C-alpha cells in the first residue's frame, strides 16, 4: 500500500505542474517527459516483467496513432471513441504478433528481430496505401474543442497525458501484487521451470503483449491528437521504439518507478545537452545511445538498483 500512496502522491504533485509552469517551452518539456514515462512503462510490462525484449515497440504506438487519425479523417469517428479503438487496435495487433511469434517458440534475439521486422512492414504499408496518406502523411483537421480532443491550453494536453500515464502505472502497481505479475516474472526468470509448475507461458506472454500494446496504442492516440500530423516514419520508425526501451532500461526494468526515473533523467540530460551544444541534428540520439551502452556496461539493472538493497533486487516485488 505504501507504494500506492507514493505513486498517487507523485502523480498528484505532477498534476500541479501546469498551474505552476506557465512557460510553453517548459510545459512542452514536461509533456515529452511524461510521454516517455508512459511508453517506457508500456515497454516495461513486456520487457521488464515478462522478459520479452521488443525492438519494434513503435509498431503498437503507430497503430494507435493511425487508428485515431484515419478513423477521424475518413470516417468522422470522434477521437474520444478513437481513443478506445486506438488502444484496442494497439492491444489487438500486439496479441496477433505475439500469437504468431510465441506459438513457434521464438525468444530472445529472434523476438527482438521479429518485432523490428513487423514495425518495418507496417512502415512500408503505411507508406504505400492512400488512406494513410502514404509518404506525405495524414493531417487531422484543426478544431480546438475538448469534444474533439483538441485543446487551446497546453496544460489540458498535459492532464490528458497524465491521466493515461496514471492508468498505466496503476496497472503495473496492480501487476506487482497480482498472480498475473508473478507468472510474468516466473516466465521471465525461467520459462521452462515456470511451464513445469503449471504456468501457461504462452498465455502469460500474450497477456503481457496485450497490456503493453494497449498503452503504446494510447500513447499513439495522444501523439496524433497533440500534433495533428503523422507520417510512416514518425509512427513506425525507430525513434519511439528506442525511446521506449531506453527509458525502461535506464530507470530499471521490472520495477514500478524505474521508467518514470528513466524518463526524468533522460530528458534532463537531453535538455542539458541542448543548452550546452545547441540543437545539432542527431546530438540527442548520440546521447541516448551512449547512455544505453554505459547503462548496460556499468548498471545493467538501471537506476532503480541504486535505491534498493542488493539482496532483494532480483524479485522486482518489494511492496
Amino acid at each position, binding site marked *: 500500500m505504501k507504494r500506492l500512496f507514493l505513486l498517487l502522491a507523485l502523480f498528484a504533485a505532477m498534476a500541479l505542474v501546469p498551474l505552476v509552469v506557465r512557460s510553453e517551452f517548459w510545459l512542452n518539456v514536461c509533456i515529452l517527459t511524461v510521454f516517455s514515462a508512459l511508453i517506457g512503462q508500456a515497454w516495461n510490462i513486456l520487457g521488464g516483467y515478462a522478459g520479452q525484449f521488443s525492438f519494434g515497440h513503435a509498431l503498437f504506438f503507430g497503430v494507435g496513432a493511425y487508428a485515431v487519425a484515419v478513423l477521424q479523417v475518413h470516417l468522422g469517428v470522434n477521437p474520444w471513441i478513437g481513443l478506445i479503438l486506438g488502444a484496442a487496435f494497439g492491444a489487438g495487433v500486439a496479441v496477433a504478433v505475439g500469437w504468431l511469434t510465441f506459438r*513457434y517458440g521464438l525468444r530472445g534475439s529472434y523476438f527482438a528481430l521479429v518485432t523490428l521486422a513487423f514495425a518495418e512492414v507496417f512502415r512500408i504499408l503505411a507508406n504505400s496505401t492512400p488512406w494513410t496518406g502514404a509518404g506525405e502523411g495524414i493531417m487531422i483537421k484543426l478544431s480546438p474543442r475538448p469534444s474533439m480532443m483538441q485543446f487551446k491550453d497546453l496544460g489540458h494536453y498535459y492532464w490528458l497525458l497524465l491521466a493515461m500515464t496514471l492508468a498505466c502505472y496503476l496497472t503495473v502497481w496492480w501487476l506487482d501484487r497480482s498472480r498475473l505479475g508473478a507468472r510474468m516474472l516466473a516466465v521471465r526468470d525461467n520459462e521452462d521451470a515456470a511451464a513445469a509448475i503449471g504456468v501457461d507461458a504462452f498465455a502469460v506472454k500474450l497477456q503481457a503483449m496485450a497490456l503493453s500494446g494497449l498503452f503504446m496504442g494510447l500513447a499513439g492516440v495522444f501523439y496524433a491528437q497533440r500534433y495533428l500530423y503523422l507520417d510512416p516514419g514518425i509512427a513506425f520508425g525507430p525513434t519511439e521504439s528506442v525511446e521506449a526501451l531506453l527509458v525502461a532500461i535506464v530507470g530499471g526494468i521490472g520495477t514500478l518507478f524505474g521508467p518514470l526515473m528513466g524518463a526524468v533523467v533522460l530528458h534532463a540530460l537531453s535538455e542539458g545537452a541542448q543548452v550546452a551544444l545547441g540543437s545539432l541534428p542527431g546530438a540527442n540520439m548520440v546521447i541516448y545511445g551512449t547512455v544505453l551502452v554505459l547503462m548496460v556496461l556499468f548498471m545493467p539493472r538501471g537506476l532503480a538498483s541504486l535505491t534498493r538493497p542488493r539482496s532483494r533486487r532480483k524479485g522486482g516485488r518489494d511492496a
Partner: protein
Amino acid sequence: MLNPTILWPAILNGVTTGALYALIALGLTLIYGVLHIINFAHGALLMVALYIVYFLFRLFGLAPYLSLAIVPPVMFALGYALQRGVIGRAGHGRDENILLVTLGLSIVIENLALMLFSSDTQTVETAYGFSTVSVLGAFIPVPKAVAFVGAVVTALALWAFMSRTDLGRAIRAVAKERKGARLVGIDVDHVYAMSFGIGVGVLGIAACLLMPSYYVTPQVGHGFILIAFTIVVLGGMGSFLGALIGGIVIGVVEAVGGLMLGESLGQIGIFAIFILILLFRPQGLLGHRA
C-alpha cells in the same frame, strides 16, 4: 510482365545485388554462429566502412577497388576492439544485454555520422561507373559484375579459412562448444574478438565493392541491416552456404518484386519472407534448430 527480355535483366540484376547482400550477411552469420548474438550494429559499421572508402577517394584520390588493401584491415581492427572493449564486457550473463549494447552502438555511430557529415548523399565517381558488360543478352554495370565476382571470391576464401586454418578450426570449436574449447586451451575471448573482427572486416570488403555503384549517407545501413537479417534467418543462423544462397534469393526477390509491384511495395516481399521463415522454419533452410 513475364516477358523474358524484361525478366532476365531483372534476375541478373538481382543476382549481382544479392551477392553483395550475401557478403554483408556472411559477417553477420559468422558473428552469430560463434558468439550467438545478433549484431545490431552491423548496418552502422557498413556505413562507417562506406565513409572510409568515400573519404579515401575524396581526400587522397584512392580508387574504391584499391581501398581493398586498407579498409578491410581497418574494419577488422575496429571490430576486434569493439568486441574486446565494449560488447564482450556488456553481457553480465544475459544475451539481451549484448543485443542492447549493439543497438546502442548503432545509434551512437549513425548519429555521430549525422552530426559530422550531415545527411547529404555522397557518391564516388569513377570512369567505369557507367560502363556495362553483356551477359547472355542483358547488360549489367561493370561495378556490379566486379562486386559479384568479389563477393564469390570472398565467400570462398572465408570458407577455406574456416576449414583449413588453425584459427578457423578454433573458431568452429568455440562455436560448437565454448566450455570444451576453453578446456583444450583455446583463448575463447580472443576467438570471439577475432570472429567479430573478421565479420566486420568482411563489411570492409563489401563497402569497397559496393561504393562504385552505390552511395553513402548516415542512414545507409538501415536498408541493408534488415535485408542482411532476412538472409541470415533464411539461410539458417550461422550457415555460410545458407547466407550465400539466401543472399541471391533475396536479391532476385527484390528485383523481380520491384519489377512487378513497384519499388516501395517490392520490399514487402523481403519482409514477408523474413516473417514467414521466422514463424514456420526459424532454423532456416540450411540451419540447425537454435
